[in-house]
């Protein structure tokens, strides 16, 4: 073994420091926001809250959870994630299967794949898309958040590449035994693709949870907003929609919470589902990258 030189030791120390700073830079802002949301109005206004709550209180959270707008939009989000997952995954699977066939088994395969891939290269732009959604009658329904993006083409491509990497022998044997394509897909392909499907499911769920722009433009009534769209209007636009600012009759509450503590509480709640699942499903989050960027 070669001896470790002094220069390498110094580099090593600096390396750990730089990487620690990079990691801290990603996590400290979130911790700060969490600390603000758990602090009292006066402590936040005095600017003494850094990374730990001062005058710890849960009042901001209590206030947020009791807001009808918040719980209503949360419900829309949950509905959208569940419905969206179901529709997206089902369509992704049944579309990827035929497209994964060989040319002799499914002669127009290449043209059909291009039919889908072309939509990744070119699009009509925001206004024609908006008009299409409008004229198909989806405005102000939950389907405006589900149907236009019902087929995530990129996921179809990932899954069809995965299907193609599976051994052909199983399918051939099943075909000889008289199994239908439908059976082969659900009894052979899907069980063999569970890790890939788990990753796609996770990314799809995160995507639906995080979407806000479609809710903003396709919902005329704020009552139909999913959570992220609702948060967009109060945290970012800072418009005074009914219920976004503290009602004056809550004057007792006003001594403990402020606009800022309430906002940070909502930011944290909006991120919470992701923060909860992230550590447990890390393996699948990491795999998403390998699925997407490095295929053999």
């Amino acid at each position, binding site marked *: 073994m070669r001896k470790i030189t002094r220069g390498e030791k110094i580099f090593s120390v600096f390396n750990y420091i*730089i990487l620690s700073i990079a*990691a801290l830079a990603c996590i400290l802002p979130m911790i700060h926001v969490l600390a603000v949301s758990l602090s009292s109005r006066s402590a936040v206004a005095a600017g003494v809250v850094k990374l730990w709550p001062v005058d710890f209180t849960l009042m901001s959270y209590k206030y947020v959870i009791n807001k009808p707008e918040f719980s209503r939009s949360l419900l829309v989000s949950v509905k959208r994630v569940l419905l969206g997952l179901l529709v997206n995954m089902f369509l992704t699977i049944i579309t990827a299967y035929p497209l994964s066939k060989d040319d002799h088994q499914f002669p127009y395969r290449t043209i059909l794949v291009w039919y889908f891939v072309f939509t990744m290269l070119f699009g009509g732009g925001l*206004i024609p898309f908006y008009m299409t959604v409008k004229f198909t009658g989806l405005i102000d329904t939950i389907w405006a958040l589900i149907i236009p993006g019902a087929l995530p083409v990129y996921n179809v491509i990932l899954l069809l590449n995965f299907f193609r990497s599976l051994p052909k022998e199983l399918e051939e044997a099943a075909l000889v035994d008289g199994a*239908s*394509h439908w059976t082969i897909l659900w009894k052979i392909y899907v069980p063999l693709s569970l890790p890939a499907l788990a990753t796609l499911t996770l990314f799809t769920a995160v995507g639906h949870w*995080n979407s*806000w722009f479609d809710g903003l433009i396709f919902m005329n009534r704020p009552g139909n907003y999913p959570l992220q769209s609702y948060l967009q209007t109060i945290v970012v636009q800072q418009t005074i929609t009914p219920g976004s600012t503290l009602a004056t009759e809550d004057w007792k509450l006003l001594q403990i919470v402020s606009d800022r503590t309430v906002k940070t509480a909502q930011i944290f709640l909006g*991120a919470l589902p992701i923060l909860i699942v992230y550590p447990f499903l890390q393996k699948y989050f*990491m795999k998403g990258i390998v699925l997407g*960027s490095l295929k053999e």
Partner: protein
Amino acid sequence: MVNDKFRKQLPLYLMLLPGMIVVFVYSYIPMIGIVIAFQRFIPAKGLFGPQEWVGLGNFRYILTLPDTYKILRNTVFIAGMKIIAGLVIPIVIALLLNEVRKERFKRSVQTIIYLPYFLSWVIFAGILIDILSPSEGIVNKILESIGLKPIYFLGDPKWFPYTMVITDLWKNFGFSTIVYLAALTSISPTLYEAAEIDGANRWQQTWYITLPGMRAIIVLLATLSLGSILNAGFEQIFNLYSPQVYETGDIIDTFVYRLGLIQAQYGLATAVGLFKSVVSFGLISLSYYLAYRLADYRIF
């Protein structure tokens, strides 16, 4: 025989049908809807109704607006800087992580830097607006405590584009870093062992083994990023900009949104969008072609 073959393929076609319909309605019909760019579009007359045609009128009008050039410049400037920063920084971090021998530390850093990628821009913008506030934000509190004047990161047109580049990098550098790290795991350890025996130090190993091992993936990500030169980051900028930074921060996508969905200038907004779609189409096609030639990358 022909019938038999078709009967075998019929289930495959049936499986494709729902997806094809969805894509037709929500991707291909909007492409046909590009005709709005050549109309004085009134929604009440229907998407393909008897609209008034204005030829290239919308395009001519846009070219007379001084804002057009400003917006194009802002878009390319912000997107270009993001592409460069988004290529260089993750390579550096990946190389540094590759030198870490403590597996637990390496894993923890990877996990933490990848996390912001999964937060929505609304959440991330909310965090940024709070910490970057000139009066109450912790960042300016820190600047003040070391004797600097507070900086209005989101409200000063001079700072705004750079704030966009840095915060975008902040949210997304973990993603590319992990792509590079994944590529590094495919480098055979025997190469390092052989180099070690030949007396190569860590720096030489990085230069002669690690970097060449990353070459393919670097070329791939670089060429693919070419297609996003007109994507300056709508979700980010929409959530962070304000009228006082339009001068340097307004981009094509935010302009199209305001023109079309706020001011109801549908024809003009579609025309601007069409310009972007066409240029992007050319660039994306070129980038896929280059990725195919240089890195042997195929979409399917």
